[in-house]
C-alpha cells in the first residue's frame, strides 16, 4: 500500500493508476454540497459578493487546498458544546452531487485530490487529466473505521452551514482510499457502468 503525503506533487499524482490502494497523510478539508456551492457562487462565478467571514475563510482554505485534497464528508462530531472537537464517524458522501462544481473547484485551487464515494463524471475526469488530479474512493459507510484515521480536528469554518456541511480542517494519518479515477483518463466507474449496461441490455432482450 502506497503512502501519500499531502500536499501531493504532480509526479506522484501522475504515477497513480486506477485500482491503486493508497493511504493519505497530512492536512485536508471536508467540503460537500453547501461548501461547493458557496465557493462556486462567491469566488469562481462571482454571482454573489463575499459577506461576513467569506473572504477570511476563503484565504484560509486556499492555502490548504493548493496541492491538497478535499473530502466529501458530513461527519458525526463530538465536543460541539466545548469546542474540543472529535470525529466520531466520518465516511464519504456520494460525490456525484458535486459534479457541476468539482472541475472548476479543482482548477481554481490546484486541487490534487477529491475523496468521496460513487465516483464522478466526465467534467471531473477531464479536470483530473488537466490539473492533474485523481479521485480517491473511500469505503462508503465505513464511518467509525475511517474516523480512526482522523488524528486531530485542527479547526472548523462555516459551522453555520450545519455540522455535516461545515468545513472541517483535519490532520489525518493512514487514511485508506482506492484510486478509481486517475489523471490518464481512466475511470473504474465508467468501465463498470459500460459493462453493466451491456449485461442489462441482455437481461432485458
Amino acid at each position, binding site marked *: 500500500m502506497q503512502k501519500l503525503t499531502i500536499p501531493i506533487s504532480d509526479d506522484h499524482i501522475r504515477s497513480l493508476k486506477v*485500482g491503486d*490502494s493508497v493511504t493519505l497523510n497530512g492536512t485536508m478539508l471536508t467540503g460537500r454540497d*453547501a461548501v461547493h456551492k458557496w465557493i462556486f457562487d462567491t469566488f469562481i462565478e462571482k454571482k454573489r459578493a463575499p459577506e461576513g467571514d467569506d473572504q477570511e475563510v476563503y484565504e484560509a482554505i486556499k492555502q490548504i487546498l493548493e496541492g491538497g485534497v478535499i473530502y466529501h*464528508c*458530513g*461527519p*458525526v*462530531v*463530538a465536543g460541539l458544546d466545548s469546542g474540543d472537537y472529535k470525529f*466520531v*464517524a*466520518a*465516511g464519504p*458522501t*456520494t460525490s*456525484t452531487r458535486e459534479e457541476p462544481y468539482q472541475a472548476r473547484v479543482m482548477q481554481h485551487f490546484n486541487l490534487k485530490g477529491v475523496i468521496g*464515494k*460513487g*465516483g464522478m463524471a466526465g467534467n471531473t475526469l477531464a479536470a483530473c487529466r488537466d490539473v492533474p488530479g485523481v479521485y480517491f*474512493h473511500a*469505503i*462508503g*459507510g*465505513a*464511518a*467509525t*473505521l*475511517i*474516523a*480512526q484515521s482522523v488524528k486531530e480536528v485542527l479547526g472548523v469554518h462555516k459551522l453555520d*452551514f*450545519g*455540522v*455535516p*456541511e461545515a468545513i472541517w480542517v483535519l490532520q489525518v494519518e493512514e487514511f*485508506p482510499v*482506492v484510486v*478509481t479515477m486517475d489523471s490518464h483518463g481512466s475511470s*473504474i*466507474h465508467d*468501465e*463498470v*457502468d459500460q*459493462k*453493466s*449496461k451491456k*449485461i*442489462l441490455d441482455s*437481461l*432485458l432482450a
Partner: protein
Amino acid sequence: MLNLTDKFLELVRLAATSLPPDVEKALRESVEKEEPSSASRGALETILKNVELAREKSTPICQDTGTPIFYVHYPQGWSTIELKAQIREAVVEATKLTYLRPNAVNSVTGKNTGDNTGDEHYPTIHFEEMEGNTLSVDLMLKGGGCENVGAQYKLPNSKLDAGRDLEGVRRVVLDAVYQAQGKGCAPGILGVAIGGDRGSSFIASKETLLRQLDDKNPDAELAALEDTLFEQANQLGIGPMGFGGETTVLGAKVKAVHRLPASYFVSISYMCWAYRRRKMTVIGDNVIYA
C-alpha cells in the same frame, strides 16, 4: 402511560451502532464470492471491520445516520401524542450523545435544526393501533445516498418495454439497480412496491425492507420474482461500492398493494449495505430488543 424515552433512546443507539445479524451474515457470505485481493473484496472486508468496530465502540456504523423512520404498533387506548413526544425527545438525546448526526435541514432556509427534529414529518413516525397490550416499534435509519438512488416508474414504460405485469416490474427494477451503480453504497437491498398511489407506493416499498433477509414471501409469484431480481441484479456485475464484482445486492423484497385502474407504479427503495433496522417490543415492564 409509561415513559419510554430511555427505551426509545436505546433503540436508536442499537440501530445506529449495531448492524442486524441477518445483514452481517449476508455480508460475511458475500466476501467469499469476491476475488482475492480485488478492490471489491477489500471493500467488503473494510465494511465488516467497521461493523465490528462500531458495535464495540458504540459509535455510528455510517456517519449518515439517515432519516429516522419509526413504525409504532401501539395497544388500544395509548396516547400517540405522548408516544410522539417521547420519541422526539429520545431522538434529541441520541443526537447529543452522537449516536445520530444532526440531519434535519430546513428546505427553504438551509438551516440545520441541530437536534434531528423538524416539522411533523421529521422524524417520520407511522402509528398503527393494535389489539392486545403489546407495543412494538421498528426503527429504520435510512441514509441519503441510498435514498437518492431510489426510483419510481409508471408502467407501461415504452423505453424499457415494460408492461403492466410482473415481467414489466422485473425490467424497471433491474434498470433502477443499473442506474444506481455503486452510488447507494452497494451491496444494497431492494424494497419494491407494486401499485398504490405515488405516496403509498413509496411507503410500502420501505415497509417491505423491515422483513428479514432470509425470509420467504408467502405469495409464490412474488417469491419467484424476488429470487429472479436477486439473481439478475447480481449478474449486473456492479459489485461492492460499484468497484465491479459478484455482490451487487444482498436481497430483494417485493410487496403488492392495491392501485387505481389508471395507475401502475413500481417504487424502489434502495437500502445501502448499512441496513440499520432494529425492533423493540414492550410487554408490561419487559422491553425486548431484536
